[in-house]
């Protein structure tokens, strides 16, 4: 092997390695799909991406996260402690909501804000009390 090729071949190898290492970053510089940057605005995140982004084949543009209510766990957390679950809706045949709760181990419940179920008629901040 000549002196020239001994010097050139490592350089070519380094160049090739650099291209290989950098290629994914070069290819992906157009799209940074980290968690939705402006989902709070209600604006479609996809509208903020560069025009014609190189999204992988068959993949649609990003949708914003789906808004979920605070009662997604089925509990009205305006009542009681966070680990308790006064149901967002009582079973349809329940007529006495406080009796239902009492029979299921609940005691007096602090009311934090709204009283959707009307469990605090004297408005003293304590439900079923």
């Amino acid at each position: 092997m000549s002196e020239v090729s001994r010097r050139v071949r490592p350089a070519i190898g380094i160049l090739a390695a650099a291209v290989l290492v950098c290629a994914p970053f070069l290819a992906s510089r157009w799209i940074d799909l980290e968690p939705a940057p402006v989902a709070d605005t209600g604006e479609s995140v996809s509208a903020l991406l560069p025009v014609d982004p190189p999204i992988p084949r068959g993949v649609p543009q990003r949708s914003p996260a789906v808004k979920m209510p605070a009662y997604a766990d089925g509990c009205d957390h305006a009542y009681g402690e966070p680990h308790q679950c006064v149901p967002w809706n009582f079973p349809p045949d329940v007529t006495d909501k406080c009796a239902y709760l009492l029979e299921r181990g609940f005691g007096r419940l602090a009311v934090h804000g709204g009283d959707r179920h009307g469990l605090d008629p004297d408005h003293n901040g304590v439900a079923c009390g």
Partner: protein
Amino acid sequence: MLPSSRTTHGGRGRRLWRLSILLAGAALATAMFPGAAPAETAACRADNPCPTGLWRVLPYKAPVRGIHSVLLNNGKVLLIAGSGNDPDVFAAGTFSSSVYDPKTETFTKVDTPEDLFCGGHTQLPDGRILVMGGTAAYTSATAGYKGLRSSYIFDPETNRYTRTNDMNDGHWYPSATSLGNGDVLSLGGLDAKSEGSVTAEYFSNAQQRWLKTNEIQQNWSFWGLYPSMILLEDGKLFYTGSHVFGNGLPGTGASIYDYPTGRIVDIPGLRDKDHRDQSMSVLLPPAQDQRVMTMGGGNIIDNKDANRLTDIVDLNEPNPTYKPGPDLPSGHNHDHTPQKPHQGKMYVSAVLLPDGKVFETGGSLHNRADSVFEASIYDPQTNRFTPMSTDPVERGYHSSAFLLPDGRVMAVGHNPGDGSFDQRISMFHPPYMFAPRPVIRKLGGTNWGYGSVQRAITTGKRITKAALVRPAAVTHSSDPNQRYVALDVKRRGGGVDLRVTDNPNLAPPGWYMLFVIDEDNQPSMAEWVKLG
């Protein structure tokens, strides 16, 4: 191994007393009925075979709230509580897990670095447990739960969690499906802002890291909370319609998700798809049949009575459609009154048994209230449920049941609306535990390759079937990786040759429980083998 001072014994005195009483008969009984506890074996014999099985409530409680249960490849059970749905514990930052050894009846405390409560989990091919997401914030009257981006790997050899890189999004109630190449796909849940996450997360087993969003095929769909995503033999995922909280997804409520292309095709036929909240779905045995059953469910928002429906879909059909299965048997309510004809249950636990049947247990009629006492075994061959004895302990929200290597079913958890938590443990002894069972005496090896033939020496009656059962990783009525993979059996000499599937999508790489089943459909106890 952690210091022995961190291991606690439950009810040792009572056990010693009982053992001393039963000592003489126990050895003989254990030899005849391997896996059955001495007391139960004595109670259920040939003259009283306990055809509906037997429950035993252990005389001690789990030291942690077992909201997440993962069977490890050493036969022990990882119980993850995290904050355990206790906001005071969350505020204090004192999170917990414990490893329970069903053989020695001991617990080993596990340092738990973050609130893994409401995360997802599955076994990696090497037997370690990948845990993803969890609770970043509790709910309030105006804001919902928020999901963690963190992820950890639990090592059964050291009982320690090690942090991986973070996921791209927060996930509270994410799914976790092990794929045929050993990678893991996680979908859904609530993100760090308490919104429904549309980010698919992909853990590369080869790289031991979560991939970045721009390395992953995304279709930016919201899959709901703990969506039940079952891997099919062609590598696609089946969203069964079983989920947690509220209505089902738009459309038919069930679909096939071709992850590599992002294509989603609805599957019709799931009845009452908006009342499948905390139903449970299982890939019916054997996995080769590609049939999925979804049973029960309700809706925590409208809080109507949970249903008895079961629906079954054959995914081998050209145009798969859910078709009605037999109703769940009626049970009784907490006050011992019988259920009304339309009433069923949510918070269902469904467990694949080593004899190829499905045990279902636990549940409640309403949102975190009104426990239902009903249990049964479903036979996929006859399409019938046979009622079983019921767990004496209520098992509603945050309860789980899962198979142990000896054939028992362990049940944990119950977290009703008043905020209490029942930490008792129940053990169900299925009827097969009270008749002679075959025994695996010797295996040619425990590292099994796809498409290989493995030799097993057994004693007992003639072996007619064998199966690999994937260990449980269950929470919230969701364990989409649960599967029972039949092995081709050929009797030769004093043993059997077992041919393993050559399709990793049918049995993703990892540790499995090997059971052999005799001509009376009696299953052995399990031996652990590593596939792939």
